[in-house]
């Protein structure tokens, strides 16, 4: 039996639970694969290092990790690779020298574009003011997406959308909620809040409801259907997006097992992702899955039952 570990940022996050589900599906298909699903109590790099240390000594065959810090994990994953363990990152990557390959859920540019599109959809053709509610100021993937958004917004075709501020809710409900309230106060003409984080998007949706601004300010961003369904029904959220976490978990395990079986991770290599297709590695040994999928009132309920 090949033991493959799925190490997530921290336990108790719906997104990763769904990825775990996908991983289990892959394991069932592949047979002879056992999935270890684990993560630290708090989303810290130090916690993940401790976990990897114990995984190394359990003689796992592969480690799939969503990193809390792209750099801090490098020494320990290098050690793991020296001892023959295949290390790949998914969702949130590790620096290039610390992993064999990275499976991005989607292309960063695509995500940035998607976020802008969804904002444009609620502001209408007239455009208007929008603001970003992020997680912590250090969250790498958030910052990359925000940077991509800014690139898109700089294009003349989006000139009517004005990004007025980026605020940080630290992935805490109460702080995100307060920051959203602050945005309403500072920008009376605000049209949309874009929150590329699941805690933030839910808290902003709630703040919009409580401040009775439904129909005036819209929230959009990245969230799970099960967590967002209520806000879509209340009207605070028209649409939001996410990639399929089940497929992501599934594909990661497929790739990891392929590497264990001897496949090489090098630029240009094509790795099978089972039912999802094939991943082609770019020059940085990265592969991206599909464009994020958009959910709205029409489909959110059916997906809410799945993840």
């Amino acid at each position: 039996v090949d033991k493959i570990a799925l190490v997530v940022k921290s336990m108790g996050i719906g997104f990763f639970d769904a990825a775990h589900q996908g991983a289990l599906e892959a394991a069932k298909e592949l047979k002879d694969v056992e999935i270890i699903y684990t993560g630290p109590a708090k989303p810290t790099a130090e916690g993940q290092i401790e976990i990897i240390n114990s995984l190394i000594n359990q003689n796992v065959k592969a480690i799939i990790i969503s990193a809390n810090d792209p750099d801090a994990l490098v020494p320990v994953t290098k050690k793991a690779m020296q001892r023959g363990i295949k290390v790949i990152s998914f969702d949130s990557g590790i620096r290039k020298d610390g992993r064999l390959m990275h499976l991005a859920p989607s292309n960063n540019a695509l995500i940035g574009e998607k976020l802008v599109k969804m904002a444009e959809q609620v502001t209408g053709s007239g455009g208007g003011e929008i603001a970003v509610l992020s997680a912590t100021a250090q969250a790498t993937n958030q910052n990359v997406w925000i940077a991509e958004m800014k690139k898109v917004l700089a294009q003349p075709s989006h000139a009517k959308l004005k990004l007025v501020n980026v605020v940080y809710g630290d992935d805490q409900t109460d702080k995100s909620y307060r920051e959203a309230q602050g945005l309403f106060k500072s920008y009376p003409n605000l049209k949309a809040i874009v929150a590329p984080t699941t805690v933030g998007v839910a808290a902003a949706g709630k703040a919009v409801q409580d401040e009775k601004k439904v129909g005036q300010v819209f929230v959009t961003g990245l969230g799970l259907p099960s967590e967002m369904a209520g806000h879509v029904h209340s009207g605070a959220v028209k649409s939001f997006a996410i990639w399929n976490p089940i497929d992501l978990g599934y594909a990661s395990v497929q790739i990891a097992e392929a590497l264990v079986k001897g496949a090489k991770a090098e630029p240009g290599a094509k790795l099978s992702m089972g039912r999802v297709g094939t991943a082609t590695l770019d020059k940085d040994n990265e592969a991206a899955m599909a464009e994020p999928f958009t959910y709205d009132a029409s489909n959110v309920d059916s997906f809410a039952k799945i993840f």
Partner: protein
Amino acid sequence: MKHTAAFISRRDGVLLAIIAVVAIAVGLRAPVFLTLRNALDIANDSAILAILVMGQMLVLLTRGVDLSAASNLALTGMLCALAARAWPGMPLPVLLALAALIGALLGAVNGVLITAFSLPPIVVTLGTLSAYRGAIFLASGGAWISDHQIHPLIKGLPRETWLGLPALLWLALLAVAATAWLLRWRREGRELYALGGNPSAATYAGIPVNRRVMMAYTLSGLFAGISGLLWVGRYSIAFTELAAGYELTVIAACVIGGVSIAGGIGSVTGAVLGVLFIGVVNGALPVIQVSPFWQQAIAGAVILFSVALNARSQARGGRQILETRHMATAGAAA
């Protein structure tokens, strides 16, 4: 009665002045800060903190500390959300009672461990801080209870308005009034001051120390439990990391409000001002648009500053026992 009747002490006055100065300064930069709407937002935001602070204050008075308050809040919130999902027919009073009961039980666990085994409170509540947090994970299986799964009654409670004021505010006022009543007008309350001020003397004086300490932790738990229900309702979400680290905010509010960590000193007025201070600063930070990178450093500096200022205004005036030479000679001549 003079010392207790002085409703606003000198240090409370200083704190109130600081709060006013901060509010006005922020208002100059962002006029929206001085609107009624914003005041209500801050009050709403501070309401849950105020309830928690009342419980924490009772515990601090006994020379203890309840580090598990935020974990208790989250666990109770989660359990109530789960219960309401399982039995959707539950009426609101039952839900409230349930929250109070669970919270009080969790608080009583602290109390029993502290009194029955004479353990230091900081150790016990540090332990239950993690233990309760872990229990949330076990109870929920790590899953979120999100907006559409939260019972409408729970979501509705914090948004209700009674007599023109938000329900949250009423509940906070109730908690504050009850605590003030207990501390001012009941023996049990006075005895908290006594045993916190001098625990060994309290035994000699016949104060049932263990019973009172139990009471303080149970009440702290009860307040935390009710806050849990309100928190889940207000943000309509329940998950493992809910309000993580909030215990430090609660303690900071107490300390800024002049409640002594060393026990036996503290007033409800002061504690409420401490809450208000944190509410105003938290409300101001998003509005004045300081760089998010600066926010934490400012919060830290503000805590240090206000605590230092408090310490100064609390310093006792020297007792004048010395008779001046002039008076002595005048007296001798008479």
